Every structure is written in structure tokens, then in C-alpha cells.
């Protein structure tokens, strides 16, 4: 679980933070409502999860709320038996 959490957190930092961006991101940091990931760029996060865990996340489940923090993402992934 901890490994999964960190893999997602690492991806978010690498994919969305600019080099000079010194914002701290934790498991609960609001990503979309906090302006770190815009809903448009969320697509690459969805693709990362689908590829890494060999799942298909239907659009209806890929909501801004479901992707709004690392913890929310983990909760969503549980539905796909990714733990």
C-alpha cells in the first residue's frame, strides 16, 4: 500500500510540478481543486494508472473528485482491486 501511494505521489510530482515549484505535495494535498493538476492534464495521470496497474478506468469514474488527492486515487483504485 505504502509503495503504491509513493509511486502515485512520485508520478504527480514529476509530471505536474515545474522545476522551480517548491510546493509540498502530501497524500492529502488537493491536486485539482488546489490548482496543481488541471482537469485537462488529468488525462496523463489516468493513463499512468491504467498502464501501471493494467486496468481500464471508465470516464464516469475518472472524476475530478476521484483524482483530487493521492488518497482519493487510492480509494478509487480499491474498486479495481489495486492495493
Amino acid at each position, binding site marked *: 500500500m505504502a509503495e503504491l501511494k509513493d509511486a502515485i505521489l512520485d508520478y504527480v510530482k514529476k509530471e*505536474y510540478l*515545474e522545476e522551480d515549484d517548491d510546493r509540498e505535495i502530501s497524500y492529502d494535498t488537493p491536486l485539482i481543486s*488546489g*490548482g496543481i493538476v*488541471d482537469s*485537462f*492534464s488529468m*488525462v*496523463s495521470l489516468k*493513463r499512468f494508472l491504467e498502464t501501471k496497474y493494467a486496468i481500464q478506468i471508465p470516464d464516469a469514474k475518472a472524476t475530478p473528485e476521484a483524482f483530487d488527492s493521492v488518497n482519493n486515487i487510492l480509494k478509487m483504485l480499491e474498486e479495481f482491486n489495486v492495493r
Partner: protein
Amino acid sequence: MAFNDSIRGIYQKELGDIRSAGIFKEERIICSPQDSEIEVQFPAGADEKRVINMCANNYLGLSSHPDVVEAARRGLDHRGYGMSSVRFICGTQDIHKELESKLTKFLGTEDTILFPSCMDANAGVFEAVLNDQDVMISDRLVHASIVDGMRLCKAQQDTFKHSDMGHLEEKLQLHAAARVKLIITDGSFSMDGDLAKLDQIVGLAEKYNALVFVDDSHASGFIGRTGRGTHEHCGVLGKIDIITTTLGKALGGASGGCVSGRRELVEMCRQKARPYLFSNTIPPVVVSGANAVLDIISRTTERRDKLERNTAFWRKGLTEAGLIIKEGETPIVPVMLFNAKLSQDFAKDLYQEGIYAVGFFFPVVAKGQARIRTQLSAAHEQHHLDKALAAFTKVGRKFEILHKSKQEIIERYGM
């Protein structure tokens, strides 16, 4: 009556939420033609006030230029007011073809198709040229109209960090298998005023066999030595596969836009782009005015040269006064204030000083990046810029932000 009190209440609540979030937009009423000086009623109903306009997209000062107005009037006399048709039924006049041909020549492309606006061009172009075997890879700071257009298209979507060529290259490698890979960027980014690294983007496109799309709305007419746009500035004329741009900014400022680029891609838009197929043709009066604009800027670089001088003066003046601006070379010059409320208060005080400029904050720009975006025009004379500079300095002194660092401003006013 379906629109009963309960339904009305839903919308009243939503509007109330927008107001309390402090992002309710209000129109300022202008009671004069667009120019470097305008008569403004703000708030609506207040006495008219003559102010210097520092926030129009009227980069070349052609919005109310007598030659353009006269050409528009001639168009009205000779080709009428409206066409009551889309382009392909009975909405294409000789002057529409003339304008498409002039734009092709000016932009250095193979062909051009007009749209009612650049918003429409961006809404229609991706769906017309790409399908689900393709991928669109866009810069994260592209204009909202591009985001909307990408959403309407079935191709895969991906994004790269703003102007980050390493990240773009990773994405091109990730999507190597796609039939068509389209790199999507603004030429000049409207909020920061920086330019896309089109030379490097074209280099990557050639390396990975991708196409390049550029929205040059904030560049056409004045960026580059002869004003062709960002592709001229970056030395890649003729290498951009799709350029979209607007007639609603430097090129006369009325309305209309276009897709210009590879012949086959433009033809695909004529066959399939929905805003072209299902929306009215641009009215003759606007087309005639735009034809005159293209004649003016093809004949002389005088206006873009003056804009360049104005921009250099303004950037230097603000910096020497001790304000923080976004570095760059375009006539979009953001004065950074970081705090949302400060940007609004600053703009209000400027208005009192006779300077019209608008503060932008989240969600229009990122949190903690609030600013006043100033835009230069060839219509500005030296006395306009002197007065505007004095006003920015006076208001900056009042808020005690002159010669202060970003950190100091944030410590005092917050993010």
C-alpha cells in the same frame, strides 16, 4: 411556467456563489471607438471617464484606423450587410476568397480557410483532421478554446509542462505508435506574454515525425521581423503544419479567425469542420476591413516597429520604477502582484489615475500569480505611456511594492 421560483433559485444561488468567490465578471461600458484613449462608464451608469487603454488586443492600433473603417464602409456599400448563409451554400463572395489568399501569403502557408472566430477555428480543426488513431500533445498553458477543441476530438490527449522541451520529447516517445502525432501550442502565450520555442518544437517534430499546430492569435501581425508571427520570429516560416489565428486582435480587431497551413489539412476543414459548416459566413463589412488590414501590414512594418519601440520603453520603464514584470519581448507585459485582492485594488487605483487595466487572478492564472496584464499598442503615443508609467509608479508607491522582491510582496499581502 417552467422557469418557476424554484428553478430561478437554483441559478440565483449559483450566481451568488460566483459573486462570493470574488470572480463575478462585470462589463465595463465603452462609449467611444476602440483606441488608445477611450470613454468608459464604470460601473455601468457612472459618469463617463476618458482613460488610457492599457488592456486591449489592439496591438497594431488598426481597430479604428481610418483606412480600415473606409474599406469596411466600401464593403458595406458594394457587398451588402449580411449573407444569410454558411460559406458552402451561398456565403462565399469574391472578397472572402481574396482574404483567404492574402492570409495564406502573409502567413507563408499553403492555404487558408476563414472561420467566424478563432475560437471556432480551434473548436473545429482537431476533429476535422484527427481520429482515434492519433494523439494530440499540447502545452499546458494553451488557450481555453484549444482545450475545448481537443475535447471535441476523438484522438488521444496528452499534455506537456509549459515550454518544457524535455517533457515534450518524453511524450513524443510515449506516443510513438500513433498514426498522427500533433504538437499543439500557442505562439505567444496570452497571460505571460512569452513565446513558444517553435524552433525546438519543429526540431522535435522532425525527429519524431510529428505535426505542429500553433495558435498565433497574440502574434499575427507584429511578432517577427515583418510581423508574420512566432514562426517568423523563430526562423521556422513554412514549417508549421497548422496555424490558427484571429482577425479580432491586431488584424483589425473586429471578428473572424482562420486555419492556415497544409493544403490537405485546410481542405479537410472545408469538408468536415463543424463551425465552418454550420455557422454563418463572416459578414462582408468585416471581410472588407480585414482585407485593408492585410494590405497595410503587407506594405509596411511601420506599425509593428512602433509597437516594438513602445514595448521596449514600457518594459524598461516598469522595471526601472521597481515593479516586477514577466520578462519577455512581446507587447503583453504582466505586472506581477501575486495577491488577488492587491491586483483588484491596484487596478481600481489606476482607474482613478485615468489608466484602464485589469487585474487577473485564479482561476484565470495560477494561484499566487495574480497580476495586472498590460498590453501595448501602436496607437499609444509617448505621452500616453509617460502618463501610464507615472500612474503605475504612484500606485505602486502607495502600496509600497516598488523595488520589493516577490517574497516581500507575498509576506506583506499574502498569496
